[in-house]
């Protein structure tokens, strides 16, 4: 899957980001499923708002982590897009 940094990712409308206090982990919940996230995953998904491009998301995180994480952002969102949890990329 070839993904452009110009693409504007959107969370599947049936999925929502939540926090599982029992496991102490952020979690993506959707019909009949749940994906436990790490803090990086949450940081990415919190920036997925249907307005920011992948490039803009990466810029925010590059600044936050003082490193170029663009490739990681693309890989992560591509992985979720293959599971149809991220749309429009």
């Amino acid at each position: 899957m070839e993904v452009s940094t110009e693409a504007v990712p959107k969370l599947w409308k049936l999925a929502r980001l939540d926090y599982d206090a029992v496991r102490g982990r952020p979690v993506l919940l959707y019909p009949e499923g749940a994906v436990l996230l790490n803090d990086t995953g949450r940081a990415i998904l919190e920036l997925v708002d249907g307005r920011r491009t992948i490039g803009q998301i990466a810029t925010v995180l590059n600044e936050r982590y003082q490193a170029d994480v663009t490739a990681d952002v693309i890989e992560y969102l591509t992985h979720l897009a293959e599971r149809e949890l991220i749309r429009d990329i």
Partner: protein
Amino acid sequence: MTSERPTTLLAELTHRCPLHCPYCSNPLEMVRAGGEIGTEDWKRVFTEARALGVLQLGLSGGEPLVRKDLEELAAHARGLGLYSTLVTSGLGLTRARAERLRDAGLEHVQISIQDADTAVAERIAGVASVKQKRAAAALVKELGFAFSINVVLHRANLDRLGAIVDLAGELGADRLELANTQYYGWALENRSKLMPTREQVTRAQEVAQEAIARYRGRMQILFVLPDYFEQYPKPCYGGWGKLYLVISPDGRVLPCHGATQISTLTFDNVRDHSLDWIWQESPAFNAFRGDSWMREPCRTCPRKTVDFGGCRCQAFALTGAAENTDPVCILSPERGMIDEAIEGHEEPLEYRYRTLAGEPQRV
């Protein structure tokens, strides 16, 4: 003891149901209304389930809408942070109830469809139901729930799979679960009449693959080959007592909805024990954890970490011992009985319909 935490609880709130589908996953011996646990029991159990790690709750049955406390239970679940699915026939979903459920925070509704052909659909359901199901689907869309359609597939409807998919598309489903019949309980009773031919399964697989691609992005379609037509068994919900638990209407806690048929096990009840104890300590939940219970050919098989020997309920129902390899597995010495069952389909399709004992037959 286990370090595993369950993610999913299927709450079978009742066995009462207006439909009589001959493949129902409820046991042959069903719980009557008087044997059902009450509202406060269910609320306590949901709280305990969340504390144990459950994230997904199925409000199921029978037909869960026959429970008048459904809205209260849905609200309690939402308050705990559970993601809830109402698993319904659609019958009984009036506008007033649908609105109350939405206000209670219910997120996802799954409606069953029997076929795209009305006459066949109602013959399967054993009752006039298509019109009410369509109305329920329209309400679910209008009120903005996440919306799934579930279709159990078998010989009488597999040839219309394309039309079934398109019907789900027209009804506006976000997800479509195409579930091939699994032969437990009522479905095992009716196996020779539900069993598709090999040709039907091959064609259905092609239709499903094409539909998955065509609807991608609009409607998510799930299609899993029926296990009888596979070489290896299904990993039962990631293994016995690992991710999944079911509570039957009378409060018994099961690792799988088919487990009550394993008559060699006793399933503890939420009336007597905490859910935590039942999950961690109860003999039934520990019976098939790990692999020390396995017999050959599973015990030394490299696939034992992939499919965990398959389905314990199926092993018990078909071979008489839950410790045996699921006979669906081509490595099972008893695989022959599966191939015989595939070849042994019968006409005409006179089903034994699902009924509570003593209930008048309405078919």
